[in-house]
């Protein structure tokens, strides 16, 4: 491969879709979805249940055929005729289901051979070390916990050294410690092994801590796509104020600019959409006007942003 060719491949998104759509009878699961993933990204795929995340991931892996649109893997059109492009991808879709009557090693050996028959046992040992399963490799998978199955799933996804990992809800069914371990593992795959990762989860807090870029889907449509830092604009933080007694805020804040920032209110709680640096000023105004404040907290998180966005969209729809 010439230098120019390799530079072109470097610039090419590792995965891209153009106007991807899929319906199941009358249900439009994914509509006109266009997005791209650059090399090195940890790309968060967010959306409520039924938003179309899993359907999209299945289309990206050739499990489900799109009704319309195209998928490109490193710039090459992916369809049923060139499934060899899947060698560039490792994936776990939904649950990490494997053959329970086989050992972890046997499962890994089998799927490694399916990806590339030339993969040596030393590579298997290497990935088992990465996911922390080396000591349990000879145990039957039916004896594994959900966390161990997830880690074996990641070993299977990693074993053929793919450039892109597609992980659909990898923290599903894990306990808090398992979730933390999985997060650590995913971050190290990106940082230490330089993998590009597409990850979906309904645990948005997890994605916020992992992803560099993200797409938010709702009812099969893309709502927003971009850098997590940009999407989590600190000037748009939600500040929640808890009062000691029920209060009529519209009267209390009459003739102030704060009223325009009021996002949501109930007798004991008010939410302002504002720059958090202005929180002391808000506090001062409220106290001066006789409000007794119990607590002020910032809801600066992707979850708040996501919920606001999807709720707003629902209202618009």
């Amino acid at each position: 491969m010439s230098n120019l060719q390799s530079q072109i491949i470097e610039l090419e998104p590792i995965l891209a879709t153009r106007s991807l759509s899929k319906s199941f009878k009358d249900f439009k699961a994914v509509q006109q979805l266009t997005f791209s993933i650059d090399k090195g990204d940890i790309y968060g795929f967010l959306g409520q249940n039924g938003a179309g995340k899993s359907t999209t991931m299945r289309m990206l892996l050739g499990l489900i055929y799109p009704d319309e649109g195209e998928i490109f893997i490193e710039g090459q059109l992916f369809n049923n005729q060139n499934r060899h492009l899947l060698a560039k991808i490792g994936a776990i879709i939904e649950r990490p289901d494997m053959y329970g009557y086989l050992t972890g090693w046997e499962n890994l050996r089998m799927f490694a051979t399916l990806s590339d028959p030339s993969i040596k046992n030393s590579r298997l040992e290497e990935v088992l070390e990465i996911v922390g399963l080396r000591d349990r490799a000879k145990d039957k998978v039916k004896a594994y916990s959900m966390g161990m199955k997830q880690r074996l799933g990641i070993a299977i996804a990693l074993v053929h050294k793919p450039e892109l990992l597609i992980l659909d809800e990898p923290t599903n069914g894990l306990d808090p410690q398992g979730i933390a371990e999985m997060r650590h593992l995913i971050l190290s795959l990106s940082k230490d092994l330089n993998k590009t990762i597409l990850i979906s989860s309904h645990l948005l807090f997890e994605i916020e801590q992992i992803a560099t870029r993200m797409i938010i889907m709702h009812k099969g449509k893309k709502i927003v796509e971009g850098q997590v830092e940009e999407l989590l604009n600190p000037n748009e933080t939600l500040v929640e104020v808890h009062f000691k007694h029920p209060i009529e805020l519209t009267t209390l804040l009459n003739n102030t600019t704060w009223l325009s920032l009021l996002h949501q209110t109930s007798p004991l709680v008010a939410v302002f959409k504002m720059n958090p640096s202005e929180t002391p000023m808000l506090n001062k105004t409220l106290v001066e006007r006789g409000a007794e404040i119990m607590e002020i907290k910032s809801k600066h998180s992707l979850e708040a942003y996501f919920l606001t966005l999807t709720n707003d969209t629902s209202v618009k729809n």
Partner: protein
Amino acid sequence: MIHLLKIELFKIFKRPRTYISFGTITAITFVIQLAMLTDGKAFVNFALQGINEQFEIQGNILNGYLVTYIILQSLLVHIPLLVALVAGDALAGEANLGTLRLLLTKPISRPKLVMVKFLSSVIYTFILITWLAVVALAFSLLLFGKGDMINLKSDSIILILQDDIMWRYLASFAFAALAMTTIAAMSLFLSAFADNAIGPIMTTMGIVVVLTILSNLALPLFSLIKPYLFTSHMIGWKGFFDNPVPLKSILTSAGVLLLYTVGFVLGTIFYFNKKDIKS
């Protein structure tokens, strides 16, 4: 392709369920052999009641060849269930287990996967029939010894000399393997439509039972369709115990079974290649 096939065979023969079939065949065969050891002479005398009055029959009538024929008559009807246990599970079982989606995220083509599933089912079927041959023929010969074989038909008696029998058995087992390959192909075809193995296994048995009944009904309406039912041709192995052997009829039956097999495999490839994997 060879790597894929090795993997499929590894999965089949690592699974405890696979050995149910071998255990069942062994158990039933031994039960029949035991029954023939204890009551075989009375059974043979009863069967030859009318003939004994007109002919003088000498020698070891209750020999290994006759016992094997009796075993095959009773057992070959049930082998389709044992074949369906594996072939019906090939795609639907993977879907039910959730491993189908993991398999299909690997860079292998769907037609190739179907072909490998079919070939592995065929290899399993051949091994099963070979096992049947070993436990039925080898153990019967060991227990009952050799001798000329009397094949009692509804309208005639066929005497086959012991030196002329072994090739007939080998040919019969080969034909039975072909017939069971058709069953495997049908089970695999049904398996492509389901996400649970029970459905294709039961449907295979349902189809075999219904078509066998239709094949055996002596009604003019069904006579028209009988030549086109694969179940009518599955009993073609019996032809090898006729004298002379109806080679043309056997080859026709083999051809029909082969056509059905190819049809089922192509149907599976066509459907599975278009199927959305939602399991």
